[in-house]
C-alpha cells in the first residue's frame, strides 16, 4: 500500500447511501469537495468581514484574488462579460483550493478525478450555450459559420468548427485532470524510491538523497502547477464565455 502510487486516488465510501438504485454515497471525494467549499467560503468571509479601509494582510489576499479574476474576465470578455464574474470567481477559487488542499500529505485531490473536472467544464460550456441562445437566439449559431468562406467548403468548415467547439469541455477537463494526476503520481513514485533505496543499507541511504532532492523540487513544481492550472482553467472559461457574450459579428 505504501508504495502504490495509484492508491491515493481510490474512492472510499464514508457514508453509504443509495437512492432509487443510484449510488449516492458520501465518499472521501465528496468530503474534500465540501472541505474545499467550506475553507474557501470561510477564508473569504472571515478575511473580508472587518472591511477595513486599509486592508490587513489576509484581507488583501482576498482582495487580490478578487481583482485578479476581475481583470482576467474583463480582459477576455469585456465589461459585458462581468455578469459571469460570480461563476468564474467560484470556479477559480474552487479549483485553486482543491489543488492546494490536494498538496497536503494524505489528503485526497478532488481535481484528479476526471468526472469532477469534466462537470466543471460542462458547467462552463453549458453556460455559454444557454446564455448564447437566450441572448442572441439563432444568431448564436453564427459562431460556427465563419464569414467569407466559399459555399463549396462551407459545410466542411462548419463541421470542423462544431467539432472544435465540442472538444472544448474535453480539453479543458482533461488538461486539469491529467496535470494533477500525473503530478501526484510522479511525487509518489519519487518518494517511494527514497523508501526502497534506503532499505538497502548505508550505500542505499546515501543514494536516497538524490530522489529526496527530486521530491522536494517536484513538490515546489506541483504548487506552481496547482496555481497555474487553476489560472488556465479560469482564463479559458473567460475566453469561452466571451463567445457567449459576443458571438461572431
Amino acid at each position, binding site marked *: 500500500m505504501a508504495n502504490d502510487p495509484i492508491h491515493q486516488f481510490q474512492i472510499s465510501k464514508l457514508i453509504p447511501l443509495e437512492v432509487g438504485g443510484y449510488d449516492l454515497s458520501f465518499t472521501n471525494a465528496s468530503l474534500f469537495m465540501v472541505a474545499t467549499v467550506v475553507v474557501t467560503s470561510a477564508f473569504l468571509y472571515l478575511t473580508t468581514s472587518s472591511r477595513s479601509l486599509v486592508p490587513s494582510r489576509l484581507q488583501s489576499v482576498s482582495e487580490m484574488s478578487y481583482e485578479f479574476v476581475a481583470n482576467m474576465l474583463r480582459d477576455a470578455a469585456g465589461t459585458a462579460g462581468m455578469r459571469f464574474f460570480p461563476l468564474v470567481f467560484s470556479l477559480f477559487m474552487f479549483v485553486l483550493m482543491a489543488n492546494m488542499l490536494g498538496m497536503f500529505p494524505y489528503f485526497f485531490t478532488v481535481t484528479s478525478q476526471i468526472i469532477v473536472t469534466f462537470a466543471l467544464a460542462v458547467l462552463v460550456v453549458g453556460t455559454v450555450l444557454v446564455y448564447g441562445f437566450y441572448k442572441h437566439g439563432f444568431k448564436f449559431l453564427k459562431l460556427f459559420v465563419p464569414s467569407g468562406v466559399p459555399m463549396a467548403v462551407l459545410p466542411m468548415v462548419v463541421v470542423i*468548427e462544431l467539432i*472544435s467547439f465540442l*472538444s472544448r469541455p474535453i480539453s479543458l477537463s482533461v488538461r486539469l485532470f491529467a496535470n494533477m494526476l500525473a503530478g501526484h503520481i510522479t511525487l509518489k513514485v519519487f518518494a517511494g524510491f527514497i523508501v526502497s533505496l534506503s532499505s538497502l543499507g548505508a550505500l542505499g541511504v546515501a543514494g536516497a538523497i538524490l530522489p529526496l532532492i527530486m521530491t522536494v523540487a517536484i513538490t515546489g513544481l506541483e504548487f506552481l502547477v496547482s496555481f497555474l492550472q487553476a489560472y488556465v482553467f479560469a482564463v479559458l472559461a473567460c475566453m469561452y464565455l466571451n463567445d457567449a457574450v459576443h458571438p461572431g459579428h
Partner: protein
Amino acid sequence: MPSGPEKSRDDLARRTQELEAKLAARNPVRKQDEPSADGGTAGYGQAMKLSSEFISAIAVGAGLGWLIDKVAGTSPWGLIIFLLLGFAAGVLNVLRSAGVVAQPKTGMGPDGPDR
C-alpha cells in the same frame, strides 16, 4: 437642489478618472511582469495545452462519427470521415491557441479557416 450632489458626483467622477489614469501609468510595469513570470514555466503549460487541444478534437471527431454510424448504420464511413474532420479540427484548435490563426470573432476574414 440637484446641483449640489450633481456637482460632487462630477467631482468624484473626475477624481476617479485621475486616479485611474495614475494607476494605468503604473500598470504597464506590472503587465510586463506577468508574461515573463509565465514564460519561465510556460513551456510545460504550453505543451500540455496544445496536446490536449489536439487530442480532444480527434476524440470528439471519432466519437461523433461512431455515434452517427450507430444511428444511421453507415459503418465504417462515418467514423472514417469524422476522424479526419476531427484531425482537421485538432489542427485548427492548435493553430488557434498558438495564435497562428486568429480567433473567429476578431479575424473572420477569408484567410481564417484555410490557413
